[in-house]
Every structure is written in structure tokens, then in C-alpha cells.
């Protein structure tokens, strides 16, 4: 064998355009052929610090036995060569029984056939890529020159393996960047949330070759409610694993993986690896991405990689996703504003139209009354024959028809009566009291509030109720003539009729009402004031009666008067009032 020619062949192959595995196999075949080794096998060092039998020469017999097991660095001859980074050579007399791991009984049976063994580490300047194993049946000795030659060749193989690593990792990186750029495009487009989630899921699923991927968004901050998109099929058997994992990812705010190492072949979860990662923005979890891939059987290189990648993708999409969610919220708000504005404009239009129609209807009504009225008078005064009185009848009938049309129109367009609305009476009282804060007539009046803070709301015309409160509170202040205490208390009660009422009591320290006047105070135009019309309490009473309530009076002469306003507790459902 010409060593120069030999090395030339090897270098030619290692620098060729062949795929990396083909290059290594070709080199191994050259070694086998030129140096007369029956076995030329390469163990590669994996990320998990174990060695796998991966490449072989064409005629290798041991490969099929050796590649069933993986061995740890430091274990057996192969492991110790990898650990010490020093080649070892043996002949059939001194070769250790343990090649690699403990279970090589099949190898043991073959050992006797070989005469010499060489184990050479595949090194780069600093990194160990694996071990080259050589066995020969025909040769008995290995010369020093051959050992040097093998060490040169092993360097070359190390170099090819390094190229392989770099190539794979740059391919991976390129596809990762391509995925990120695709994600970027989707995130900056103005898609609906559901479409966006779908696109993100598809891109990530393709990039990671996932069986399925689930993206969940659940954040009250954006008021979008829970949204979920799943690409691929989730087997029902592993659905609860997915939910558990998502929960763990959200709670721990970090990527969690589930690799099931059970040996129960019936458990479908063994065949799948799950990774779930939270999508976190400003320390708040917006949702999760969960992927499922087939648990790798052979390739140990990238086992832990997907978890890292999905984490990367999650942090990349966070900002874009947050913007989209904000956008969605903004769109909703704008839509609401627009529709509110439209409604207001419609209402204004309708109001204008209503006012105009009402005015016209009124202007028509008076002449109609005159026409119809005098037609009737004519009929009464004149001695008309049958046909003439029929004419008058037609006029009066048509007038009354027009009158009823006008009434209908007016009923339709007139301002709807103020709808009763639900109101908290304590707030109502506070708003009324606020009116008096700047009034000098109240400088010497102390107001004590004793509210029941758990009052149910009452359904009422708030303006009218305020009018009642104002009337009674002003009366109380005037009765005290320059100073005293008004106590306002709210409470609930159930009357004998089974109905629940809210009671507002307003007590003054004005000396009470003259017993002689007591029976008149609710009558219109009854007043004890110098400047008073005497309508305040009459109107108040009528308002409260209209609300289905009542006003009662407790009068202690010499001390003060106490008014009780009863308002029934009602509820509004679908615009209707229920008692």
C-alpha cells in the first residue's frame, strides 16, 4: 500500500460533494480495502454523552450487533478511548472482553475470529466526535507507520463529522430564521385573532414537524375570552396530559416537557413527547403554545432541542400577539363608538321629526275642532232633508277620523314617558344633599346619615324621586328655622302584604307640626309658610303613590317631624318591571 496514494484517496473523498454519511462510509471502505480491516466502524458522540454506532464499512458484520446498544463515555474499551482521547491497540490475546456496554455477548462469540483491534478517538482540535473501531482477521501486527496513518485518517474523519455538525446546526438555524421571518410576516399583518392563531400554529407545526400544536390565548386584560387553535389531531388519550402540561407551564411561567419513559407499550403517551411553553408579556401570561412530536427512537442529537425552539418562538410572537390583541380591542371600541354615534344621530333625527310632527298636528287640530264643531251645529240648526244631513254626517265623521289619526300620530311621536330605572336610593339622597352644600341657608344644619349599605335597588323615575326628597328635606330645614339636625336613614322592611319596601326616613328637630294642621299637610295649597304655594307635599305624595309607595308621618310636638317614604322593591327584566 502506498501511504501517499491512500491518504490522497481519503482526502479526495472527504473533500468531495458527497452527502456527509456517504463520505464517511466511503472513507471507511477505503480503509477496509487498503489496510485489510474486516471491520471499520465509527461510533459518534451524542449530545447526551453517549456513543452510538453509526457508520460502517460495507462488509462489516459487527455493526449490526454493536448498533443495538449505546455506551456511556468511560464504559468499556470504546468508552474509555473516548474519555481518555488516546488510541488503544490490542491483539487477540490481550483484547478486553468488554467492547462497550455490558451486553455484548454476541460480540464475545465473534471475538475469536479477529487477530488485531484498533480503537482510535476521532478528535478535532478540542472536541471529541467519536471513536473509530477497526478489527482484522488476517493481519497480526500493526506497524507504527500504520498507526500514524490511522491517526491522520481519524483526524480527517473527525473533520468530516465536525462539518456534519456545523451543517446540521446551520440548516436548523436557517429553518428557524425562516420560521421566525414567516411568523414576523403573519404577526405584522392585520389578521383576525382566530386566523392569526391558525397561521402561527401551522408555521410552528411545520417548522418543528409536530404531530399537533395547540395555541391557547386566555387573558381578561384584552377582554377576548379564551381562544384556542389546534393544528393536527389531539389523541383523546393524551388530551389530559396536554391540559396538565399547559397548566404547569402557566403556573411555572416556563417551558415544561413531558417525555414518558414508561415501558408499557399500550400507553400511547410513550410514543409522544409534549412541550408546553407560556407566552409571557410583561410578566403576564397571555396563553400557551403546546406541541406534540413523536418521541425520537434513533436520533439522539436533537432530543432536547424542540423545547428550546418552541420557547424561542413563544418569546418571538409575544409582542406581535399583544399588539394584535390590543388592535382587536381597539377595533371593538371603535366599532362600539361608531354604533353609539349612529344611534345618537338616529335618535336626534327622530326627536326633530317628532317635534315637527307634533307641532304640525297641533296646528291642524284647532281648525279641525272648529270645522267639525260647526258642521254639527249646522246640522242641528238647519232643517235639512235626508241627503243634506248625510253630507254633514260625512263631514263630521271625516273630522273625527282625522282627529283620531292626529291622536295616534301624537301618541307615537310624543316624548316617551320617562322610563323607570333601577336606582340605589342612598346615591340618590347623596346627590340631592350635594345641592345644598353651597346654600347659606344650610350653614347651621347638621345632616346625619344612617344608611343601610345593602339596600336592594328600587325601580323609579329618578328625577321625580329626587323632587320628593328635595321637597321634604327643604321643608325639614325650614321647620328648624336656622339650625338643627336632620337625620336621614335608609332601611328595608317587609309589609304585611308580603311586599318588600325600601324606607327613607327624614327626621328634623324643628319642634314638630301643629296637630291641628296634621290632616291637611298633603292637601294641595295648604301651607304654613309665608311664601309658599302649598304644592310641595301634595305633589310628593302623588309621585310616591304613583310609584306604588306611600308617605307616612311621625310627629312629636316639641321635638320634630319624621317623614317615612316607602318605595316598593321591584326588578327590571328585559325592560319590564317586576314586583
Amino acid at each position, binding site marked *: 500500500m502506498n501511504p501517499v496514494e491512500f491518504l490522497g484517496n481519503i482526502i479526495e473523498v472527504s473533500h468531495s460533494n458527497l452527502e456527509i454519511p456517504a463520505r464517511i462510509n466511503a472513507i471507511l471502505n477505503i480503509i477496509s480495502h487498503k489496510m485489510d480491516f474486516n471491520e471499520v466502524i465509527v461510533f459518534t458522540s451524542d449530545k447526551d454523552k453517549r456513543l452510538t454506532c453509526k457508520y460502517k464499512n460495507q462488509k462489516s458484520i459487527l455493526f449490526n450487533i454493536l448498533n443495538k446498544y449505546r455506551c456511556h463515555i468511560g464504559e468499556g474499551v470504546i468508552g474509555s478511548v473516548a474519555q481518555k482521547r488516546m488510541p488503544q491497540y490490542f491483539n487477540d490475546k490481550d483484547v478486553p472482553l468488554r467492547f462497550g456496554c455490558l451486553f455484548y455477548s454476541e460480540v464475545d462469540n465473534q471475538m475469536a475470529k479477529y487477530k488485531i483491534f484498533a480503537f482510535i478517538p476521532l478528535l478535532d482540535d478540542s472536541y471529541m466526535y467519536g471513536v473509530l473501531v477497526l478489527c482484522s482477521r488476517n493481519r497480526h501486527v500493526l506497524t507504527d507507520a500504520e498507526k500514524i496513518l490511522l491517526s491522520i485518517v481519524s483526524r480527517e474523519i473527525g473533520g468530516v463529522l465536525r462539518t456534519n455538525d456545523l451543517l446540521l446546526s446551520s440548516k436548523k438555524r436557517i429553518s428557524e430564521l425562516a420560521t421566525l421571518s414567516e411568523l414576523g410576516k403573519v404577526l405584522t399583518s392585520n389578521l383576525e385573532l382566530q386566523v392569526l392563531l391558525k397561521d402561527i400554529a401551522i408555521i410552528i407545526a411545520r417548522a418543528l414537524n409536530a404531530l399537533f400544536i395547540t395555541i391557547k390565548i386566555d387573558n381578561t386584560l384584552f377582554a377576548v375570552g379564551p381562544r384556542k387553535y389546534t393544528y393536527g389531531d389531539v389523541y383523546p388519550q393524551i388530551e389530559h396530559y396536554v391540559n396538565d402540561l399547559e397548566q404547569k407551564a402557566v403556573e411555572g411561567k416556563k417551558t415544561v416537557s413531558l417525555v414518558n419513559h414508561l415501558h408499557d407499550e399500550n400507553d400511547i403517551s410513550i410514543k409522544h413527547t409534549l412541550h408546553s411553553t407560556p407566552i409571557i408579556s410583561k410578566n403576564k401570561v397571555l396563553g400557551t403554545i403546546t406541541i406534540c412530536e413523536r418521541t425520537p427512537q434513533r436520533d439522539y442529537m436533537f432530543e432536547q432541542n424542540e423545547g428550546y425552539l418552541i420557547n424561542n418562538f413563544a418569546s418571538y410572537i409575544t409582542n406581535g400577539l399583544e399588539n394584535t390583541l390590543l388592535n382587536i380591542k381597539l377595533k371593538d371600541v371603535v366599532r362600539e363608538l361608531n354604533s353609539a354615534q349612529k344611534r345618537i344621530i338616529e335618535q336626534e333625527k327622530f326627536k326633530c321629526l317628532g317635534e315637527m310632527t307634533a307641532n304640525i*298636528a*297641533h296646528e291642524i287640530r284647532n281648525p279641525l275642532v*272648529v270645522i*267639525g264643531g260647526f*258642521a254639527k251645529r249646522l246640522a242641528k240648526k238647519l232643517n235639512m232633508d235626508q241627503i243634506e244631513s248625510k253630507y254633514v254626517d260625512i263631514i263630521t265623521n271625516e273630522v273625527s277620523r282625522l*282627529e283620531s289619526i292626529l291622536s295616534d300620530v*301624537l301618541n307615537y311621536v310624543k316624548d316617551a314617558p320617562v322610563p323607570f330605572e333601577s336606582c340605589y336610593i342612598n346615591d340618590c339622597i347623596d346627590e340631592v344633599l350635594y345641592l345644598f352644600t353651597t346654600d347659606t341657608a344650610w350653614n347651621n344644619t347638621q345632616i346625619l346619615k344612617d344608611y343601610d349599605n345593602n339596600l336592594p335597588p328600587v325601580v323609579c323615575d329618578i328625577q*321625580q324621586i329626587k323632587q320628593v326628597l328635595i321637597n321634604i328635606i327643604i321643608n325639614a330645614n325650614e321647620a328648624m328655622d336656622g339650625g338643627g339636625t336632620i337625620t336621614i336613614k335608609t332601611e328595608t322592611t317587609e309589609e304585611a302584604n308580603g311586599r318588600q319596601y325600601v324606607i327613607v326616613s327624614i327626621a328634623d328637630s324643628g319642634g314638630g307640626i301643629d296637630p291641628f294642621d296634621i290632616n291637611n299637610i298633603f292637601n294641595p295649597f295648604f301651607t304654613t309658610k309665608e311664601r309658599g304655594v302649598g*304644592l310641595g307635599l301634595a*305633589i310628593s305624595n302623588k309621585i310616591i303613590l304613583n310609584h306604588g309607595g306611600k308617605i307616612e308621618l311621625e310627629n312629636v310636638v316639641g321635638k320634630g317631624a319624621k317623614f317615612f317614604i316607602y318605595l316598593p322593591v321591584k326588578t327590571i327584566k328585559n325592560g319590564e318591571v317586576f314586583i
Partner: protein
Amino acid sequence: MNDVKILVVDDEENIRFLFKEELEEEGYSVEIAANGHEAIKKAKMTKYDVIVMDIKMPGMDGIQALNEIKNFNKEQMVILCSAYGEFKQDFTSWISDAYVVKSADTSELKQTIKNMLSARY
């Protein structure tokens, strides 16, 4: 029946004319006023059994006039009679003794007056 005095207050001359004729035919003695001020003036001088008061009038409207009249004579019976049905909802109109929507058919107005007078006697 000639001793029953009625005051018809309306800004429309033809309405005043119509109501006057219709009510006189019922046997009442009817006077007229064209607005709130005139009505108050007349009500202060003469005691009417019933005042029929329009609401929408230039100058002083019917509700203001009603309040003024009730203020100096709360026994005075007043019927609000207007083309405006919705004033029924305004509580300031509640102090009137009755409310009739103006119509070419005066029978409701006549009946209301009859009821009021018979309630009084």
C-alpha cells in the same frame, strides 16, 4: 240653569265661539277670555262655576293661569282643555279638576262639566 257661569279661555276665536254656542245651548251663561292674563282678571272679578282653560296660549299659558287662579281661589273648578293630550303626564297640571282633550265632539266636555256641577251640589 242660567245661574251657572262658565268662563271659556282660548286664544282661537273660532274655538271660543264654538264652545260658547255649544255650552250656552246647554243652558249655561258663558263668558270668554283670549289668554291667561284676561282669564285671571275675569276670575278675580266674577265668580265662575267652571273655567274651561286651553293650555297653549301666547303670553301666559293655561297651566300658569291655572296655578295663579288656584292660588287666590283654591275652590275654583278648572277644566284643562287642550289639543295636547300629553300634559296629563305633567304633574303641574294635576291640580286642575279635570282634563279634556279638545275635540269637535264636545260631548265629553259637556259631560265633565255636568259631573262637576252635580258633585258640587
